[in-house]
C-alpha cells in the first residue's frame, strides 16, 4: 500500500531523481521494503523481544495482574527441573536420531542409489518419498499413529514376518516419533543431495574409476568431499526443522506416555498452556530460540552471500 502512494510522485521521478539529494533518494528507493519491515518487526522481532522480557517474569495465563520480574528464576528452575532435563535429552535424541542420522543418511543413500537405479524405480521412489513430505504435518502424524498403533500396520507386518511385535507408542514412543520424522522429512535431504550429486563433475568420478577405485571408495574419496558443503547446509537446515517439530509428535503421542516423548516444543506448550505458566514456558521458548539462532548463524556462515 505504501508502495502505491509512491506512484504519483514517480511519474516524473526520472527527471526529479537527479535533483533529489542522495539520502532522500536512498530512502525513496528503500520504500518498497517498508511493508516487509513493518510485518517482520511487529510479528517476529516484537515477539522475540517479548520473549526475552517475559522469560524473566512469573507471568501466568490467569490474569496479567500478578506479573513480576523474577530475574533468572525461570532458568534456575528449569535446570533443576527433572522434566525439563528429560525433554532436553529427548530433544537431543530426536534431533540426532531422526535428522542428523536418520534423514541425512537415508536421504544421501536414496540420492546415491537413485542415480544408479532404472528410471521407473527412480520415479516411483522419488514420488512416494516426496508424497510423505508434501502431506500436511497433522495428517502425517495421524498416519504414523495408525502405523505404529498396537493393532496397526507395522505390527501386522512384523507378525507376518514372524518377528516380535511391540506396542510401539507405549514402550518406545521416542523411537516411534523419530522413525515418523524420518518417514516424513527424508524427502528434503534426498532432494538437496540429488541436486548436489547432479553437479559433481562426471570426469572426476570417471577418473577415479579408471584408477581402479571401487564404488565405495569413489563415494567416500570423491563424491562426498565434493558435495561436503551441501551436506553441511543440509544438516543445519534439517536440524532447525526438526528442532521445532511440534504437530507430528503432539498428534502421535502428546508427549506421552508420561513424558517419554516430550521434546522441548511439547514441554514448552504444556508448561505454558496446560500448567498456565506462561513465564516459565517463555523461558523454555527462549532456550529453544537461542539454540535455533546458533544453528541459523552457522548456516548463514556456510552459505556466505556473494561478494560485491
Amino acid at each position, binding site marked *: 500500500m505504501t*508502495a502505491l502512494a*509512491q506512484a504519483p510522485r514517480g511519474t516524473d*521521478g*526520472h527527471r526529479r531523481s537527479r535533483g533529489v539529494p542522495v539520502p532522500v533518494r*536512498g530512502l525513496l*528507493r*528503500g520504500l*518498497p*521494503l517498508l*511493508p*516487509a519491515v513493518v*510485518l*517482520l518487526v511487529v510479528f*517476529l522481532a516484537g*515477539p*522475540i523481544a517479548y*520473549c526475552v522480557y517475559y522469560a524473566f517474569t512469573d*507471568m501466568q495465563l490467569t490474569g*496479567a495482574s500478578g506479573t513480576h520480574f523474577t530475574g533468572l528464576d525461570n532458568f534456575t528452575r528449569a535446570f533443576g527441573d527433572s522434566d525439563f532435563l528429560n525433554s532436553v535429552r529427548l530433544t537431543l535424541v530426536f534431533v540426532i536420531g531422526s535428522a542428523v542420522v536418520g534423514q541425512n543418511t537415508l536421504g544421501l543413500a*536414496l540420492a546415491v542409489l537413485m542415480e*544408479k*537405479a532404472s528410471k521407473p524405480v527412480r520415479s*516411483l*521412489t522419488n514420488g*512416494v518419498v*516426496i508424497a*510423505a513430505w*508434501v*502431506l*500436511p504435518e*497433522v*495428517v502425517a502424524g*495421524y*498416519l504414523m*499413529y*495408525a*502405523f505404529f498403533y498396537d*493393532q*496397526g*500396520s507395522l505390527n501386522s507386518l512384523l507378525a507376518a514376518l514372524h518377528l516380535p511385535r511391540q506396542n510401539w507408542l507405549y514402550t518406545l514412543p521416542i523411537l516411534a516419533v523419530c522413525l515418523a520424522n524420518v*518417514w516424513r522429512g527424508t524427502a528434503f535431504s534426498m*532432494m*538437496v543431495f540429488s*541436486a548436489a550429486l547432479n553437479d559433481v563433475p562426471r570426469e572426476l568420478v570417471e577418473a577415479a*574409476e579408471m584408477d581402479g577405485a571401487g564404488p565405495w571408495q569413489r563415494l567416500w574419496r570423491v563424491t562426498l568431499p565434493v558435495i561436503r558443503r551441501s551436506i553441511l547446509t543440509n544438516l543445519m537446515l534439517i536440524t532447525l526443522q526438526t528442532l*521445532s517439530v*511440534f*504437530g507430528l509428535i503432539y498428534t502421535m503421542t502428546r508427549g506421552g506416555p508420561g513424558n517419554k516423548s516430550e521434546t522441548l516444543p511439547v514441554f*514448552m506448550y504444556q508448561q505454558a498452556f496446560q500448567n498456565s505458566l506462561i513465564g516459565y514456558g517463555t523461558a523454555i*521458548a527462549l532456550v*529453544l*530460540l537461542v539454540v*535455533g*539462532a546458533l544453528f*541459523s548463524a552457522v548456516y*548463514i556462515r556456510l*552459505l*556466505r*552471500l*556473494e561478494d560485491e
Partner: protein
Amino acid sequence: MAVAVETPTGSARRDRSATRPASPRRRSRLGRLGVNLVLLAVSVTYVLPLLWMALASVSNLNTFRLKWPDTFTLDNFDAILNVDTTYRPMLNSLLLCGFGTLITVVVSILAAYPLSRYRSRLRRPFLYTILFSTGLPITAVMIPVYSMFVQVNLIDSMPGTTLFLAASALPFGIWLMKNFMDGVPIVLEEAARIDGANAMQVLWRVVLPLMRPGVTVVTIFTFIGMWGNFFVPFILLLSPEKLPASVSVFTFLSAHDQTQYGQLSAFSLLYSLPVVMLYLLLSRKLGGGFALGGALKG
C-alpha cells in the same frame, strides 16, 4: 566405461578380461538389480501408511490393520461431507492461507526489488537478517506471540492469524523472490527507464512478467507451508467455527478416539489433496529439485 576403454586394445587383453570371474558389465547389471530391489523395498515401507489411509477411507472395516476392505463404500465420505466437518474448516483454511499467501507474495515482490537492484550499505546486513530469520524456529515464538495477541486483543481473530502466518513466511519468501529477481537481466529495465518509466512501473510491467515462474514457485511453496501449518492456528484461534482443517484433523482424532478412522482418513485425504495437486503442478512445471536448488544455492 571400463568396457569402452578395453575395446581398442588387443585380443590378448580381451581374453584376460573374459576369464575374470564377473565381467564389469554383468557386475554392474547385478548391481543395478540390487539397487532397484533396495529402492523398491524403501518405496514399499513409504507407501504402506499412505495405502492404509486410501483403503481406510473407502472401507467398511474401520480398523488400524492394513486390510483389503470387504466392500468398498463411500459412506465415510458421505458422513463427513457437511458444513461442520468439512466445508467450514476447508473454507477457513482457504481464507487463512489464501490471504496469507497473497500478502507474503506481494510484500516479498516489493521487498525483493530494492534488494536485487540497488546497492546500499544496508543491503548486506538486511539480507543476512532475512536469511538468519528463515532459520529461526517459529514454534519457539508462539508463546510470546500468544501473550502479545492477548494484550492487543487479536486472539481468535482470523485477520490477526493471517497476518502472523504471512509474516512468518516472509523471510523465506523474500529470499527466494530476490534470488529469482537477480536472474532477470537489468538491461531490459534500463530500456524502460530511458522511456521514462519509474521503478514501480518497471517492476510490475517489465520485471514481474519475466519472473512468472519464480513468483509461481514462491506462491505454491508459501501456500503449501501455510496449508499444513498446525501450531499457529492451534495457538491463536479458539472458536470452533474459525478453526482451519489442520486443527480439525487433530480435534477429530482426539474427539472420536478409537472409533471413526474411516471418516478421519476420508477427511485427511480431502484435506491433503490440494497441496498434493499443487506440488504436482509445481514439479510438472519446473522439474523436481529445481525450486529447492534455487533456494539453497543463494
